[in-house]
Each structure stands twice: as structure tokens, then as C-alpha cells.
């Protein structure tokens, strides 16, 4: 029997220099995988840290955080009979993949509700702070909050999705010193206490972004979800160097002065995405440490996936619930809490890396924040690669300016018609005309954002807001400006070209194509992600 790795002290992230003995390396490739042999002596692989140990008693840790908050009064002291209490929580985009029951949100909210009940608070609303994301379904809400919470609040209409387009449901709290409008869900804004329950999977999440973005609407969000801000966020994963966060913090000041009293709860989880045992656990291992059993498991899994129709593969992966463990929970003052959260995040994710690379490679998995229980469409491929993965750095980008990015993903021309209707039009109409983020922003953003039909679908169906595909494109705008070339290995050539990238059928072809831009023997860095890692580049 294999020893339980939880009993060992986890190893930190690690940079491997590839030599002739290095076995083929595993790349995520959507809902499948590829094994790639990378050139010896000029390639390095960055591995994520192994999962940090989870808190042994999460319930007690939560209780401790609520009773002894940072720079704030204990929660029970803030709860008064007859008060208006609103609990906002992160939506389906966190964590990735969804975690096994019970979800952390459920654990926290159950304790908060118990305290509220004990204090005689009976006007309580629970709001999924989804900003311009799609509404959560009943099943998804039940998964995040548990049946008990759902059944107690949903039938009364006290548990619902935030609706940024409800003409009677939003208020403007004021404007920042940079003249940025601050808007908020009316119920939340008019509450005596707003408790925000965060699930901080990466360092981008949380802080003032929770309330300033999560409970806001287009008129507030557009001030930082734009090309200029995103190009000045280097990276948007590094809160202190991120214009995205600076803007949210300015909006936070307005909320502090004119908005509801806020009690912020933030949580971090470890890197235990795929488990310590089972077929997927080998995704958390380093290839040269694979056992014979791992190898056989991988071969079998790969064969099986190859033979399956895409819809079945999608179903299998969407069914995976991660056995994440809670590594920290802190509550109280927004800014103080967030600094502690960042420390915990970085402790799990940061891997020190010396120097940049000519070619950055990574494999994109089947999921990103916007296709949970859905389809990873080409625009999301761009956003996950050039937005999230590219920005997983502190200091300077892993790849040098003018370098090449190679991503592995099947990139099918597929869209979820219910979740992503405006994406389809963005991809099939707008990208056919231009891929320049500035041009798209200037010519089309307003039209899509104010489109009556998209708004109808956002409010009444399960569609992302009409403007959302633009944000996906802006998320990658820093990378688009920085990179010399983007190559997608194994992607649908038509879809890849529509994105403005170059399709390659194999990694060898991709490296060949990269040589036009970075010469014949460039340095290569493979970011072995997920589980999540963030490069601390010096």
C-alpha cells in the first residue's frame, strides 16, 4: 500500500532541467492529454508545489476566524435583532474544478447562519455574487450551499442570483477619485451588514474585487475590465502590480465610505486538485516518479479517452469534483484579511524561477472559470492561455518580450448555446473582422453590452452577459501585446486561425514554427500546470 502523502511533508515547487534521460512530459490537452518529448539541455520544466496539508478541523478554524476576526469585531457582536443581513458568496467560477461536498461556502454560511439565528436576525438574504457571469442553476446552488441552506432560503426568495441588469435592483454608491462609477446590488448596499464569503483559489481573487466587482454591473465593472487596465496589470495575479486591483481598491474606498458595513471572509485551498489516489492522481505527480502502475493507468486512460466521443469525455471531466482541503480561513477587515490570504496563496503557488525564456509552453486543461458544467469554447481557450496562464507570474513574464507561446488544446469550434450565446456572435462575426482588442472594444463593446436580447438571456436564462466575451479577450490583451507569436498544438486549425493564432499538429511542428521568431535553438520553459503554480521570476 502506498503511503499517504499527507503524512509526508510536501515538497515545494521545482524547476527541472530537461536532459536526455527525462521521460516524455504530460501536457493537459482539453479533455485529454498528450505526452511530449522536449529538447534536452535547453528546456526547463516548472512543477507546482505538492499540496500543503489541509487544516485538520475546518469547522473549528472557521469558528475561530468568525470569533476572532482580523482588525474587526467578532461576528456575533455585529449581529443585531431586526437588522438587514446579506451574505454574498462566490459563484460557480470558483473553485476549479468544483470541490467535493461539503463546499467551503456551505461550511462557512452554515456557521454564519447559526450565529445570525442565535442573535435573532431574521432578515437574511443570500446572493450569488456573479457580476456578469451566468446565473447558477438550482443544482449548482445546492452543491455550493448544501440542501439545508437551499431549502430554507430559496423557496422564500431569499437565496438568489445577483442580477446586474435589474433596473430596480442596483444602486450607484458614488464615484472614485478617478471618476469610476461604483455600483452595487441594492439589497447588499442597503444592508446593515454585508458578509462576503470568498473562495480564493488564486491570488487574483478576493479583497475589494469581491464586492466592487462581484456585486456590481456593467457601469461599474467597465472601468477596470478594459484593454488599457489589463495591459497595465503586470500581472493581474500580483495584486500590488495590478491596475485591475488598484481600480477595485479605489472603488473599495467608495464602498467603505458610502456602502454597507462589510465583513469579509476569505479562504484558501491546497493544490490537491486530482487527489492522492485514483486515475487522475498521476496528474499531480512528476513524470520520472511515475510507477509502473501509473504508466499503465495513464496508457489505459488515454486509450479510453481517445475512443470516447467528445460529449462523453466532457461529461466525465465535468463530473470530477476536486478533493480540495482548506488551508486557511480569515475574516474581518477587507484589506487586512486579503493580505493574509495572499500569503497563503503564494505559499502554495509561488515557484522561484531565474530568468525569462524564449518559448513558453503549457497544456490547457478542460476547464476555466467560465465553462463549469459547460463547453470550453475557443474564446475561453484564448482567455485561459493568454489571460490566466500567461499572467501566472510575479516580477516579469516567464517568456521574454517578443517570445513565443505554445499551448496545447484541441480548440474545437464548439459553444454552449445557452451559456455563451454572445460568444458565438463574437467569434463568428467580430473575430472574422478583427482580433485587435482595442478595435473590438471601441467598435463593439457598448453594442454587445447593451443588447436587449443578451440582457434578456443573462437575466432569465443561464447566459453570460453580452459583454463577457470582450472581457475574455481583454484578459489576454497584455499577452497579445507582449508575445511575438502564439501557436496552438492539436487545435482545430479553422478555430485557431480565427483566434489569430497559428495551428500546429505536433509539438515538433510548433517548435519548428517558433524558430522563425526566436531562432533555431531557443530556450524553452514548460509550465506544468495545473495543479496551479505561479512563477516568481527574477
Amino acid at each position: 500500500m502506498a503511503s499517504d502523502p499527507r503524512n509526508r511533508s510536501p515538497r515545494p515547487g521545482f524547476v527541472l532541467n530537461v536532459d536526455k534521460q527525462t521521460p516524455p512530459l504530460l501536457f493537459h490537452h482539453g479533455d485529454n492529454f498528450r505526452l511530449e518529448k522536449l529538447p534536452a539541455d535547453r528546456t526547463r520544466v516548472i512543477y507546482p508545489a505538492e499540496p500543503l496539508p489541509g487544516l485538520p478541523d475546518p469547522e473549528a478554524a472557521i469558528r475561530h476566524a468568525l470569533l476572532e476576526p482580523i482588525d474587526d469585531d467578532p461576528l456575533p457582536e455585529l449581529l443585531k435583532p431586526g437588522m438587514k443581513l446579506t451574505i454574498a458568496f462566490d459563484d460557480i467560477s470558483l473553485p476549479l474544478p468544483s470541490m467535493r461536498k461539503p463546499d467551503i461556502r456551505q461550511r462557512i454560511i452554515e456557521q454564519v447562519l447559526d450565529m445570525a439565528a442565535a442573535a435573532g436576525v431574521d432578515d437574511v438574504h443570500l446572493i450569488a455574487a456573479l457580476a456578469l457571469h451566468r446565473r447558477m442553476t438550482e443544482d449548482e446552488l445546492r452543491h455550493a450551499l448544501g440542501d439545508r441552506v437551499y431549502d430554507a432560503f430559496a423557496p422564500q426568495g431569499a437565496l438568489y442570483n445577483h442580477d446586474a441588469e435589474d433596473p430596480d435592483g442596483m444602486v450607484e454608491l458614488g464615484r472614485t477619485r478617478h471618476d469610476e462609477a461604483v455600483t452595487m446590488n441594492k439589497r447588499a448596499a442597503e444592508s446593515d451588514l454585508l458578509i462576503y464569503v470568498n473562495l480564493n483559489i488564486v491570488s487574483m481573487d478576493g479583497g475589494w474585487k469581491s464586492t466592487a466587482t462581484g456585486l456590481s454591473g456593467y457601469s461599474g465593472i467597465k472601468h477596470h475590465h478594459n484593454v488599457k487596465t489589463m495591459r497595465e496589470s503586470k500581472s493581474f495575479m500580483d495584486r500590488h502590480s495590478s491596475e485591475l486591483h488598484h481600480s477595485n481598491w479605489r472603488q473599495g474606498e467608495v464602498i467603505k465610505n458610502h456602502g454597507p458595513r462589510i465583513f469579509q471572509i476569505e479562504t484558501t485551498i491546497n493544490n490537491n486538485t486530482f487527489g492522492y489516489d485514483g486515475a487522475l492522481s498521476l496528474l499531480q505527480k512528476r513524470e520520472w516518479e511515475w510507477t509502473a502502475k501509473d504508466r499503465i493507468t495513464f496508457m489505459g486512460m488515454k486509450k479510453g479517452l481517445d475512443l470516447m466521443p467528445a460529449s462523453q469525455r466532457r461529461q466525465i471531466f465535468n463530473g470530477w469534483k476536486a478533493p480540495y482541503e482548506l488551508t486557511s480561513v480569515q475574516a474581518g477587515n477587507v484589506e487586512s484579511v486579503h493580505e493574509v490570504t495572499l500569503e497563503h496563496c503564494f505559499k502554495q503557488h509561488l515557484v522561484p524561477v531565474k530568468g525569462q525564456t524564449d518559448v513558453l509552453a503549457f497544456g490547457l486543461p478542460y476547464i476555466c472559470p467560465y465553462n463549469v458544467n459547460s463547453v470550453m469554447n475557443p474564446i475561453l481557450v484564448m482567455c485561459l492561455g493568454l489571460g490566466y496562464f500567461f499572467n501566472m507570474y510575479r516580477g516579469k513574464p516567464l517568456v521574454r518580450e517578443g517570445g513565443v507561446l505554445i499551448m496545447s488544446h484541441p480548440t474545437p469550434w464548439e459553444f454552449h448555446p445557452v451559456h455563451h450565446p454572445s460568444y458565438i456572435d463574437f467569434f463568428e462575426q467580430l473575430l472574422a473582422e478583427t482580433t485587435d482588442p482595442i478595435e473590438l472594444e471601441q467598435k463593439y463593446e457598448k453594442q454587445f453590452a447593451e443588447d436587449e436580447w443578451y440582457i434578456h438571456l443573462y437575466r432569465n436564462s443561464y447566459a453570460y452577459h453580452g459583454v463577457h466575451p470582450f472581457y475574455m479577450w481583454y484578459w489576454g490583451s497584455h499577452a497579445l501585446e507582449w508575445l511575438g507569436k502564439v501557436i496552438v498544438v492539436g487545435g482545430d486549425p479553422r478555430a485557431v486561425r480565427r483566434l489569430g493564432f497559428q495551428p500546429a499538429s505536433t509539438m515538433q511542428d510548433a517548435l519548428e514554427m517558433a524558430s522563425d521568431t526566436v531562432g533555431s535553438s531557443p530556450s524553452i520553459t514548460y509550465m506544468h500546470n495545473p495543479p496551479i503554480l505561479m512563477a516568481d521570476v527574477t
Partner: protein
Amino acid sequence: MIRENLSGKRIAITGSTGFLGTALVERFLRSVPDCELVLLVRPGRRGAEHRVKRDILKNDAFDRLRDAFKEDPVAAGGLDGETFDEMCDRRVFAVKGDVSQDGLGLDDAGLALFSTVDIAVHSAATVSFDSALDDAVQVNLLGPGRVAAALRVAAEARTEPTPGGLAPGEKAYLVAVSTCYVAGSRRGNAPEQMVQDSPFFVEVDWRAEAHNAFQARKDAEQASRTPQRLKALEADAIKTLGAAGTPAIAERVENLRQKWVGEQMTQTGRVRAASLGFPDAYAFTKALGERSLVETRDGVPVAIVRPSIIESALAEPVPGWIRGFRMAEPVIAAYARGLLKEFPGVPEGVIDVIPVDLVVASILATAARGPHISEESGEHEPDIIQIASGSANPFKYGQMVDLVQAYFTKNPVYDEKNQPISVPDWTFPGRGRVTRQLNRAKFALATSERILDALPLRGKQAEIGADLEQQKEQLDRAGGYVELYGAYTECEATYQLDRMYALWNSLDEADQRDFNMDPLSIDWPHYAHDIQLPSTVKMARLKMQPSKGPSVDRNERIRKNVLSEDRHLAVFDLENTLIASNVVASYSWLATRHLDTPDRVRFVAKTLREAPTLWNLDRADRSDFLRYFYRRFEDAPIERLERDSLEMMSDLLMTKSFPAGIRRVRAHRALGHKTLLITGALDVVVEPLRPLFDHIVSAELGAHDGAYDGKLTNVPPTGEARYQALADYAEEHGLDLKESVAYADSTSDLPMLEAVGFPVAVNAETKLAAIARRRGWLIEHWTKSDGAPNRTIPIGPRTLRGPLRKQRVAAMQRRAAG
């Protein structure tokens, strides 16, 4: 001689809107500057004068004279400072008339004008080789006699001398245009003699022939109304239109009936002509027309000019000038496109064509010469002048084929893919073999079509059916050419030109220079390659050059028109046009949403069992189907359905929607067009789609006590009811249907599609695909988004409200307590 003799005369012309007639008008106006013309035309809706201006003087034949007037009116034969239009106003008079009516249908004013005429040229004829027998009799057989009779009446009505000096009572001179083919299907020499003087002429009574032709029309009309015939026609209509609704089918049946009568009359004419030794009804009625004219002319001086097959101009007014699509063009165009691989005929056979300007010159010369005076009696007597090429300068069929092949080998026609089409070698098969080949191909196609028809195909696959349909049509057309023209290419008669040459030789040098009518002057290779074929290519709009740049898709062009700002209204069908779903699916979804698992299984089994019945009912009559089907909603609580319908939008409608279709609706709205949805679906089901449309017409159910009663309160809009709903909406909002767009997927929507100016077939089933292709409608293939969840059976996701929910909550509470 010609110019002098015609100078100052007033000349009447019939048939001036035709090919030869237009050339005559042009030549008289240009080459005989001080003659005047009286044009007898059927008036049309806006009067004779309008027709003369629009249909005759606008023709490009007059470009030469028009330009000459711009340059120097006096040199062009006009007055100082005169424009072409002013000259026409001065010299051209329009008279309302019709040669198929007794007295030419002239009113008093018309007769008064007609009585001022010195010479009449009768060129009106039904030249189409497949015209109905009675039509041909009216125009070709009775027409010439009627013109002669009208000239007699006109002479009596005349009170003052004509401009050319005819005294009251003096009869004007008639030049009647006939055809060489009155000689019938025969070999050897055909001299310029009266038809009855030919040894091959079978004597028949032209009056009896005319009477019988009219009787045949009555018989055919009667035969077309027998129950068997009407039933067969109805079956035919349903086969092409499907469930298009009663009015559409009725209209189609009546069209088919009239077409059937027409075909019967064509057939009758062809067979009667053949039985008397003529290639077709045209030659037959023309021959009897000559006879009737000569017999009934009663003192009217007459000359008959017989051209062979008239073709593009050799030189006048410009080389290659032609009006309309003539006999040889469709054949040559079909050959150049590679459609017609073989055409019957013997290579040694002579194809007797004659350029139009030579015919015009011979008519002018005949008119100028005046009536033939008999040497014996000293009286004028009818004579005949043939104008043909076969005897003097024969153009062999084999030579023509070589020239055509060489031409299109050097100048190939390009197909849609920009590939040059190589023309086939001609093997000169007999007519029988070609016909047999065509029939075999047709049979094979008809069989595949029947099979395709029986399959429930849509979209791209359905277009295979449309392809077949198109091929069948091409074969039909080719078969038509073979049958009609085959007789001519196989005709081996040689038309003698003795009198024509006598007339030619009587002309002075100036006339011979200006009015060429000598067939010897034709250089056939030059004529074919530099004049006739380029003109054919132009007329048939053949693609002689690969299109530049990426070829613009035909659909792309129409789509641009459909999405023009000028459109008013876009009307959409729902099922299979915007959404891959139907009323059965939405009902199943709603019905199962509140069932537990065993009940769901029972429901699915029941629905599947019923599927064939529903399917057949739907195919037979959609309204009945909807009435029958909607009874299932009896006692369904309205409030619950309204709540569920929003969920259904996400789970069923949007999931099965065609994003490109939704995008199209929105594109119309963005352009400011009104958008209208007409569907047989229930109002609550389509309610969530309201933001897309200005108005929705849907089925509505009656209600009692907060539940539906299962009875439709209005006729479900299907077939013609959809058209009516559309028309009502358009009228109410002052929108023009001709400027509107309709999107639908099935022939049951034909009334709606046909009502608008811009019909669009979406994912069309076979029959509609064929119709759309034939009529040049926009065809769209819209599909579900790749990546849409794929559920084979439309079942609503279970909601846990209600008793089941209570059980679960109770169980949970027990666990919590325990």
C-alpha cells in the same frame, strides 16, 4: 431606286415589337429619311404609344441612328436641331390593333390613320415552334387575310389621298412575310411558287382547319376537367408542394390544368402539321395563311417574302444585332455549357439561316418595287420572293458544328468553380438515339427523386434532391430542343432564289451597296466566329472569363439584398427554422417536468408508441395535428406552465436553437426591420422569445379556472393562415410585402414565402429545396451549435418541488435529528 420609291410614303408595319419588325422599323427610319411609319401594336396596359416607345424605340437597334442624330441631325436625315425622339414623334404613329381579331381590332381613329397608309408590311407571326395550334391559326393562318381585309375597308374609308398619292378607294400594297418552310418537309428544290402549286402540297380546306383548331381547344378544355384528370393534377400538385394548404394547392392545380391544355394544343398542332407533311404547326399555319391571303385578298396588291431561319445581323444596324433569344441560341448555349452532348442532324445537311439585315433589305426592295404586274393580264398579281442561303451559299451542318466547337474550344465557358468547360465531340446521331438516351437518363433521375422524396431529409441532403430536379429540368429542355429543332436540322430542302436574284439584279449600284440582300456575301466562318457566336454568348450571358478574385457566392449576393436597409419586415417560422424542435418536444418537456422516474418512463414509452400516428397526422394536415395534439394540455395549470416555460427556454429552446438564425433575427432588428414570428407553438412556450420579435402569432388555448381546456381559441396559423397572419400584420403597420423577407423550412409555408419579395428557405426539406433552387431564393443552412448538450428525448429536468421535495426534506431532517 429603293429610297426614291419609298420616299414620301406612309408605311404600316405589323409585328414591329418582334425581331424582324424592329429591324424593319429601324431600317425604314434610318435609310428612307422622309417616309412615315404606322405601327400596329397590341396596346398593353399603358396604351399603344407607350408600347412603341418602350418596346421598340428603346431597343439597341436604334443606338446607331440615335448617335447619328446626336452628331448631326441633318446628315442623319432629320430636321435641323432635331433630336432622335423628336424625329420619332414626327414620323412614327402608333395604332392600337391586334391581327388575331377581325378588323384588326381597329377603332375609328385607328381606321382613319390606317386609311392613310400607302404600303403595309405584315410581319406579325407566332414564330414559336411550340405554340398552341389555335393561337398559331389565329395569327399565322387568319392574320394575313385580316390585314388585307382591313386595307380594303381602309381604302373605302379614305376621304383624301394618302401622302404617297393613293386616291380614296385605291387599295394599299401589302407585303406579307411568310417562311420558306411552307414548302414542307421535303428534299430537293423548293422554288418560289404558291404553296398549292407544289406537287407535294396536300390540298386541305383552310377554313375547316381553322374551325377544327378552335374545336380542339374546346375539347381539350373539356378533357382537362374530367375527374380523373383533375385528380391526377391534384396528386401532382401535392407531390411538389406538400402540405401547403388548400388555396395554394388549388392555385397550383389550376395552373397545371391550363398548362396541360396548352400542351395538348401544342401536341395537336405538331401532329396535325406532321400528318400533312410540315415540320411543325408554325410552317403548317403559315402555308395555309399564304393560301387564305391569296384567296381572300380581293383586289389588294400582294407580295409574299419568305425568309428561312432569321439570325443575327451581318452588318445592319450593327454586326451581330439580334432581338430576343432565337432558335439557335438556346441550343448553342446548352452545348457550350456542356449540357447538350449530342444533337441530331446529318453533317451534309444544310442549315438554312439568313441574317436579319438581308431579309429586311429584301422586304424594302419588294416594297419599293411595288406589286408584280402580270405580263399576260397587265394586272397586279401576288408573287413570292424567297430569301435564304441554302441554294446560293449553303452552310453545312457539319461545318457549323466544327465552327461552334472550334469557337468554344478557343473561348471556353467557365463553370461556377472557374473551370473552363470543354465541349464534347458531336457524333451526329439520329434523332431517335438522342431521344432514347435522354429518356433513359430522365427515368433514372425520376426514380432517384422518388426515393429521395420518400425520405425525411433536410438541409444539405435535401439539396441533393434539388440537384436532381435541376438536372431533370435541363434534360427536359434538351429533349425539347431535340424534338422541336430536330426536324429543321434534318430538313434537306433547297430554297430557290430566282425571283429574289431578279429583284437584286434590278437594283442599281447604290441600292446594292446600301441594301445588301445577296446570300453570297456571307462568309460563314467569319459570320459564325465574329458575329453570330459572340452575339449568342452575349445574349445567353455565358461566363466567358473566370471571375476575378474569390468568386462571390450567389447566396452571398442574395443575402446582401435580404439584409438591405430597404426591407420592411422579416417573418420567421420557428420549428426547424430557428430551433431544431417541435410542439411534441415542448409538450413532452413540460409534461415530464413534474413526474417522478417511473411515470417519466411510462410517458416516454407512450409518446414513442404514438409517434407514427402523430407523424402521419402532421404530414397530412398540420392544423388537424395541432388541434388533436393540443387537447393534451387539457387541465394543465396555466401558472405552472408560465413558470416552467422560462426554464424551458434554456433547457430546450436555446439548447436546440440555431445561433445563426437567432443572429439573423437580430440583424433584421438592428436594420430597423419589423420582425414577426409565426408559429404553431403554444403562446406560453414562445413567450420567452418575445424580445426578439415585434410581434408573435402563435396558438392559444382556452382556459377555465386557471387551467387550459385543451381547445384552441384560434386556428393554429399553418399554411395559408400563416400567409393571412403575415398579410394582416403588414397591412396594419403599412409594410410592403414585396419589400419583406420570410424564413421557413417547409412547403407548408409556401403561401407565406411566395407572398414576400425575399423568400428564404432554411434547412429546407427536399421539395422546398427544389422549389427554392428553381426560383433563385436564398437558401440557408443553420445548425445547432456544436457543443450543445445532446438529449435524444426531450424530458424536463426534474424539479424537486412538490411531494417528492417534502419527502426528501423530511428524510434530511430525520437524519439531522438522529
